[in-house]
Each structure stands twice: as C-alpha cells, then as structure tokens.
C-alpha cells in the first residue's frame, strides 16, 4: 500500500499543533530573555512547557486515531517561509506524531528528572532554557512538512546539542566536545543541503507531499530524473543522517558528547536527537525505495556502526561512554532497519521508540549513580551499589534486560524484528547483526556487574545514597515503558499498520515467530555474552586501574582510532592548510600589492637622482630631449 495523500487541515487540535513547537520555544525565550529574574521558578516553567507540548501531542494523536486511515496525513500550513521555495508548514501523520509523543513524553520525564539532577547547579535556569529550545527544535524537525523547515529544526537541535554538551563551558573538554559535535554534524548537513538542492532542481519542490514514491518513480520513468540522481539524493541524505545519528564515518562526536550533563545525554544523545537520522531516512523512503544502491549502503552503514558501537562499548570504563557506545550500536540497528523498506521502517521506529525508553532509563540511572558517587563516572570505582540504591539499580536492570533482548521485554521484540527482516534481505548483514546482539549482551552485562555487583571499589569520600523521588519516579515510568512497549508495538504489527499511511505497508505483513533460527541464535549468543561477562566482572575481582589490555581492547578504548583518523586526515592537514593560507595571503597576495607600491617608491627614489641639481645636466636633458623630438618627428614625418 502506498502512503496516503496529504490533505490540508486546520481543524481541532491538529490545527493548533504548532503549539507543540511554540510552547517550548516560548519557554526558552522567556528563560533566556528574563535571565536571573526567572531563576527561582525557571525550571518549573520549563517542565510546564514541555508537558504542555506533550498534552498537545497526545490530543493530536487521539484526533489522528479518530480519522480514517486515508486521512491520517494532515498538513498544517502556517505561513510562507521563503516565497516560491518553501512554506512554514507542519505535517501531522502517524510517523511524525509517534516521534512527537516520544520526544515530548520522554522529554518531559527528563525535564522532571533534571529538576533534581541540576538542583545544585547555578546554571539550572539556563539548562532548562536549552532543554526547551531543544524540544522545540526537535519537534519542528519531525513535524516539518518539507525539507527546508526540516533542515531548520535539524540545525536547531544541533544548536541545542551544542549548547548542552558545552553547558559547563568552563571545562575546556566540554567546550571542545561541543564544537566537535557541531562541526561533525555540519559535515552531515553539507550532504543534506546538497540533497535538498538536488531534490529542488529535479522536482521543483521540497515539500513531502510533492515527493511521493509515485512522483519519484514517475520522474525516473519519464526520464526527468536519472536513476543516478535519485541514488545520489539517497546517499547525500544518508550522509546527513550519519552526522546526526553518529553513524560511521561521522560517529566520533557522540562519545565526546558525554561531556554534557547526564539528562542531556539521555534526552539528546540517546532518546531523540541522535535518532533524527533514522527519521530522515524513513521520511525519505520514497527516494530510498527507488534507489536500491542507496538502501544497501544504508544497511551496510547500519551494520558497521552497530558492530563498532558494540565493540567500543566493551572497553569503556566510563559508564556514560559505555552507554554512548551502546547508543551508537542500537542506532546502527535502526539504520539497518530503515534500509530495509516498509517492513524495516516499522521495526526501526519500534526499536527507536523502545530504545528511547530503555536507553533514557539507563542514562538517567547512570546519572543517579553519578549523583550518588559525587559525579564519579569510572565504573572501576563503583561496584556493589545494588544494596545502597535499590530503585536505581532495579530500573537500570530492567533497561539492561530490555536492551540485551531478554525475552518478552521491549528490545527482544524490536531488535529481533530488525534481525529477522535483515536476514530476509541479506544473510551476511543478518548474521553480523546477530553477532552484534551477542556483544551487546556482553558489554551491557559488564556494565551492570561492574556497577551494581561485586566488591565495593568506592573512593574513600563516597557515601552513595538513593536519589530523590523527583529523579526516581521518572526512572520507574521509563522502566515500565522499557518492559511493555516492545510487545505492544510489535505484536500483530500494531505500529506497522499505524504507520502505514505515512510510510506505506508491505504486501505481506511479517508474522512473529519466536523460535526461528536467528532468534534462538541471538538468544544463545547473548547468553554467552552475559555469562562471560559474569566471569570477567561479576565473579572475578575488577582491578581499580584498567589493565593494559589486548590490542583489541586498546583498539576499542581508542574508539577504533576514529579520532586519530580524523586528526590525521582532517584536523592536522586543515590546520596546516590554514596556516599556509594565512602565510600565502600576507606574503603572497598582499605581498604583491605592497611589493608593487614599494616598487613604485623605489623607482621614484632612483629616478629622482636624475635631478642632479647641475644646471648643465638640465640643459643636456633639454638638448637630448630636443634631439629625440626632432628625430621622432622626422621619423614619423617621413613614414
């Protein structure tokens, strides 16, 4: 089934769905403009705005459900943005609304959590302003009804991420990480921009409702657009997606991004922003489905990243970096799914939503742990925390089980779906995904054992305690989601059929068969991973200082030498180039200009010596001149 047509609508809540963007934006504006005056109640305003957006989203969702399938793509045109090019318009359809719910829902929970987490931070008001700004931008991104507005949101979240990663600007590492994140993202944006240009020059429009699969196929068949063009569009979009979603080769920024406060890592760098790439690919399905090559590349990138992330996750002692690696890996799964057409879309989105919950859950859990351990992040200094902070531990454990795909928890359904679909497309990719799952089992278990079990390896001044309820309640809510969402979304393809109007529906819906070969293999591998982790980190003694480790370990610790590569390939040559350019500009071009001036000056200095001051030499010059003139005239005259 093809996606439904978009129909313009402005009634009911959907008509005012722009409030979803406006409310948080307003919140951010107020908090930033009125500054210190709002310090006392700023965080509350932030939460309120986020909850308001959530309310609108839910209402819109309900209204959407009330409509017949064919009308479930509602466009809301606000105003002409760039005359002749793009409108400021929103698109409320199953896809965007699912994201909206995730963003506002998880976002609100994290807002609430932050009240507690940032309570001692002087910049809390600013923090909430940025969070609101992020929510607004993210919603604009997913609700946009054309690529230009999407790009506005796209960069908006980039900005928010920049501000939040660098929230503690006085930490040079944080500032550097923020800059790195933004610049790497810009590389992706470069691709996205070119993609938009190509789309515009090919189709004369950037609006989603003009760029349906039908339009694309029509363009190809009529020869208006070559297959190559469409493939190019796909790959360029993918480049953009890689930037946002920290997929290879633009993954390097995500691990550094952990410099930001933990709620930020949870919201932006786990639950929502980093999944924007997946959204982009799914939203642009029309192009990818018409360009198999592009699709293949998407899946390859996905698999490569999911392995890379998993491997990195294995070697990290910093709990947040460990989680970051896992995020990379999970998004890899989503990418893989997004590269597999309508079936994959559904699983990808399902995994995305589930991941949003359990990863946010675990990040916040980690935050709670850090909160308890005076911001210690090194898991080698944790251990045996289970007993002192039960809620945190329990919720974290639920997230853990969910992510490793423990049967009947969220991850089990969603990840399995992706693996199954991948198998159908391409055995190799499928099996690699399975391996990835196994590694996941290992590194996540490692994290859990090092943190909550084994001997206490705390610093002497550490007096861990359970976090306040303002922090634990969100944890609980999120863990509930982590448990049930997967089953809810996957069983009898609920999400797939819901999304159908937006992304289309495959001819034959996939059934759910838990005892397939890949499924069982996955479980087995995960089990192996868990057990191995138990022996390495649960039962055995964990040294407080990291051992040198094998080559593979170092390889993983160094983020697979991603940074080293960037440094060698881009940073150093770039700096060298800049220095050379400056030199060239000063000595070369400007040197030419000044040299010319100096040259004239020098000539003048020498020439004026002719003016000897001797009257007789003057007379000579006159006579000489006369002779020349005579000669010249005779020459000309007798020509």
């Amino acid at each position, binding site marked *: 089934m093809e996606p439904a047509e978009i129909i313009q609508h402005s009634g009911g809540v959907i008509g005012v769905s722009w409030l979803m963007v406006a409310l948080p934006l307003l919140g951010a504006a107020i908090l930033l403009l009125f500054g210190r005056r709002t310090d006392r109640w700023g965080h509350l305003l932030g939460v309120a705005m986020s909850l308001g957006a959530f309310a609108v989203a839910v209402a819109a969702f309900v209204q959407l459900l009330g409509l017949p399938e064919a009308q479930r793509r509602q466009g809301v045109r606000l105003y002409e943005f760039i005359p002749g090019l793009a409108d400021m318009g929103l698109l409320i359809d199953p896809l965007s609304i699912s994201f909206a719910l995730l963003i506002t829902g998880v976002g609100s929970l994290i807002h609430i959590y932050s009240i507690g987490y940032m309570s001692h931070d002087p910049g809390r008001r600013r923090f909430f302003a940025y969070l609101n700004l992020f929510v607004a931008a993210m919603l604009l991104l997913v609700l946009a009804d054309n690529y230009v507005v999407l790009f506005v949101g796209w960069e908006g979240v980039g900005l928010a991420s920049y501000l939040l990663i660098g929230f503690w600007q006085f930490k040079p590492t944080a500032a550097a990480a923020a800059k790195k994140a933004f610049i790497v993202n810009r590389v992706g944006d470069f691709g996205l921009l070119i993609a938009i240009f190509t789309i515009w020059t090919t189709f004369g429009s950037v609006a989603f409702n003009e760029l349906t699969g039908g339009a694309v196929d029509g363009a190809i068949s009529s020869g208006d657009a070559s297959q190559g063009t469409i493939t190019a569009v796909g790959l360029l979009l993918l480049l953009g997606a890689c930037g946002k979603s920290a997929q290879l080769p633009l993954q390097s920024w995500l691990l550094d991004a952990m410099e930001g406060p933990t709620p930020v890592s949870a919201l932006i760098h786990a639950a929502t922003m980093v999944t924007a790439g997946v959204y982009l690919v799914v939203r642009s399905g029309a192009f990818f489905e018409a360009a198999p090559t592009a699709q293949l590349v998407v899946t390859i990138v996905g698999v490569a990243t999911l392995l890379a992330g998993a491997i990195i996750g294995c070697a990290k002692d910093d709990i947040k970096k460990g989680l970051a690696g896992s995020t990379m890996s999970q998004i890899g799964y989503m990418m893989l799914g997004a590269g597999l057409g309508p079936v994959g879309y559904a699983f990808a989105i399902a995994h995305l939503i589930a991941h949003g919950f359990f990863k946010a859950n675990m990040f916040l859990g980690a935050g709670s742990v850090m909160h308890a351990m005076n911001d210690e992040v090194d898991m080698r200094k944790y251990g045996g925390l289970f007993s002192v902070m039960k809620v945190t531990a329990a919720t974290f454990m639920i997230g853990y089980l969910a992510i490793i795909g423990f049967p009947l928890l969220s991850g089990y359904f969603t990840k399995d779906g992706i693996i199954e679909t991948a198998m159908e497309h391409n055995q190799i990719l499928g099996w690699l995904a399975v391996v990835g799952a196994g590694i996941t089992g290992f590194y996540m278990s490692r994290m859990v054992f090092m943190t909550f079990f084994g001997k206490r390896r705390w610093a002497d001044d550490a007096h861990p305690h359970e976090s306040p309820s303002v922090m634990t309640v969100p944890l609980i809510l999120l863990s509930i989601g982590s448990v049930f969402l997967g089953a809810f979304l996957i069983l009898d393809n609920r999400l797939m059929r819901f999304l159908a109007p937006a992304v289309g529906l495959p001819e034959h819906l996939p059934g759910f068969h838990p005892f397939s070969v890949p499924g069982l293999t996955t479980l087995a591998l995960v089990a192996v991973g868990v057990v191995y982790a138990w022996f390495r980190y649960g039962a055995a003694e964990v040294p407080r200082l990291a051992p040198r480790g094998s080559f593979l370990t170092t390889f993983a610790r160094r983020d697979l030498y991603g940074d080293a590569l960037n440094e060698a390939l881009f940073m150093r040559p770039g700096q060298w180039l800049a220095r050379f350019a400056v030199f060239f500009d000063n000595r070369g071009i400007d040197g030419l200009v000044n040299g010319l001036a100096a040259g004239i000056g020098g000539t003048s200095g020498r020439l004026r010596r002719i*003016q000897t001051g001797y*009257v007789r030499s003057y007379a000579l010059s006159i006579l000489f001149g006369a002779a020349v003139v005579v000669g010249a005239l005779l020459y000309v005259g007798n020509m």
Partner: protein
Amino acid sequence: MTTHYLVLSALLFAIGAIGVLVRRNAIVVFMCVELMLNACNLAFVTFARQQGNLDGQIIAFFVMVVAAAEVVIGLAIIVMIFRTRRSASVDDANLLKY
C-alpha cells in the same frame, strides 16, 4: 648660395648649445646662449633673402632688442649670485636637487 649661411648658422647654434653644456662660468654659458640667438638671427636674414621678403630682417632686429634685454637681466642675476657666492661657476649652484 644661401645654404652656406644656413649651415653656418646651424654650426653657430650647435657651438652655442655645446658651449652651454661644457662651460662652467655663468657668464660664458650665457654668452653661448647669446651666440645661439645670433645664429637664429643669421638664419632669419638668410631665409628673408631666400623668401624675398623683409619679415626675417625685421625679426632679426626684434631679436637683438630682446637679446639686449636678456643680457641686462642675466648679468643682474649673475652678479647678484656672484656677490653672495664669490663664484660664477654654475656648478657651485646646486643646493636644489633631487
């Protein structure tokens, strides 16, 4: 056979010009200039004869008068500078240069 006169006048003019270039004493230099003027006079009268009209000869008279005036001025100036510098060499006067 007026050509000889023209050649002569050309010669005189050249001699005068060369003199201006080679001699140092202001008076002599100035005399050379006068020589040039008189070369012109010679040319004028010669051409007057060639052309068969009187203009040239009249011009010659004018030139003499002008030359006389020039002498007056010139000598005045040269004497003035001689009194200050105690020298009439034109090469000594080169404070103004470059």
